[in-house]
């Protein structure tokens, strides 16, 4: 584990953007009507958003960033850091953050870099941006996080299709003397890298004609080697064993009690995992908001999507003590404790 804190960094605002196209798991054809009902009840996901062909994560993040910058009234030349957290970039090369820097009209002096993380990525993005800002000692940063995971999944895979959904987000941070400290606890375990993986298409297993052949892996699962593999049981066991410990360590390190935290925003993995974590940490249901039912698992965008759709009034209206926690692909996980004070938070963008 890696415990640390950053000083003088304030979260200024959060926004999110989802594609207009909505699909329902009640219409999911690979399983029976009865299984669909069990799926919605146990996994907790009814509706998902799907990006149309040609729409990239960077487009959803760009919309989020433009609306947030506008609402904050920030000048573009004030933004000195742009972090783009995604596993669905525009290209393998170059980094999409460079393209976004130009598209958003940010100055050439802006530090732009991509972070290849999924479900844990939001917390890592905030950690990297706030550490860099603290080092610079001035300026403003944007953390753009999201994925179009639906583009990575075989439509003939009943284990992954009903889980994933698409979204982009933007979070604005700024250097401000005397802003409350932010505390982080970041962890990982690469021995579990096969739990969530796209096997072919990188340089370990370059794409070949064989990569593109559909294979029947088991009943209801037909996919290519270029499609995402999700091992649900491994992910469940890892999440419920590691995440509660990580959050408890964070609370101890920051000197906070769980009762004093207004909201714990967890990555929206699935209801079985998230409720197991909530119960292990002995958190009240009202402390743990969900956006899972209507927006599914949007990878690194789940935390901002949950804040924008479930907590807009609270986060814009009053000071809050929050813990956010991401966990998944890598395996990688992390949590952050932050105090927010009347953030800018535009309504969810549909695009």
């Amino acid at each position, binding site marked *: 584990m890696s415990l640390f804190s950053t000083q003088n960094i304030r979260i200024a605002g959060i926004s999110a953007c989802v594609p207009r196209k909505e699909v329902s798991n009640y219409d999911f054809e690979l399983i029976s009507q009865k*299984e669909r009902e069990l799926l919605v009840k146990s996994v907790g996901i009814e509706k998902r958003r799907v990006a149309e062909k040609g729409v990239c994560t960077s487009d959803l993040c760009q919309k989020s960033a433009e609306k947030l910058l506008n609402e904050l009234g920030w000048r573009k030349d004030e933004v000195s850091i742009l972090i783009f957290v995604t596993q669905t970039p525009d290209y393998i090369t170059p980094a999409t953050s460079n393209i976004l820097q130009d598209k958003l009209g940010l100055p050439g002096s802006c530090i732009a870099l991509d972070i290849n993380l999924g479900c844990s990525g939001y917390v890592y993005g905030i950690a990297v941006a706030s550490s860099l800002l603290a080092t610079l000692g001035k300026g403003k940063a944007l953390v753009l996080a999201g994925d179009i995971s639906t583009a990575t999944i075989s439509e003939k895979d009943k*284990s992954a299709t009903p889980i994933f959904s698409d979204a982009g987000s933007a979070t604005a941070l700024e250097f401000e003397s005397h802003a409350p400290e932010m505390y982080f606890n970041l962890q990982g375990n690469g021995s579990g890298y096969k739990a969530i993986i796209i096997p072919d298409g990188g340089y370990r297993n370059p794409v070949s004609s064989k990569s593109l052949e559909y294979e029947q892996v*088991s009943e209801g699962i037909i996919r290519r080697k270029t499609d995402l593999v999700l091992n649900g049981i491994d992910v469940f066991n890892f999440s419920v064993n590691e995440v509660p410990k990580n959050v408890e360590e964070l609370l101890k390190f920051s000197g906070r009690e769980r009762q004093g935290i207004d909201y714990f925003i967890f990555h929206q993995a699935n209801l079985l*995992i998230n409720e*197991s974590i909530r119960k292990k940490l002995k958190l009240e249901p009202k402390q743990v908001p969900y956006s899972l039912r209507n927006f599914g698992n949007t990878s690194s965008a789940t935390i901002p999507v949950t804040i924008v759709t479930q907590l807009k009034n609270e986060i814009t209206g009053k000071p809050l003590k929050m813990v956010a926690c991401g966990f998944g692909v890598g395996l990688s996980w992390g949590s952050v404790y932050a105090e927010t004070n009347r953030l800018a938070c535009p309504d969810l963008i549909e695009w």
Partner: protein
Amino acid sequence: MQLSDFVQSIEKEFEDTRPGTVTGETEFRKLEGWSSMMALIIIAKIDSDYSVTVTAEELAECNTINDLFELVHAKAA
């Protein structure tokens, strides 16, 4: 932990099964309503009730509810 309690708690997860029809000898994959999703639901149930982690490989080696009970019993000890 008792086998009878364990059988009952697993049985409850299968909505189409009449109460009292499942025993230790029941092969759980042959129960009405079995699916890969049920595997995850049962692993979550065992984690919540007994604080025992059952891996995908361990589950694959179990055929009957008794096999599963023995596994959980051994790991809980």
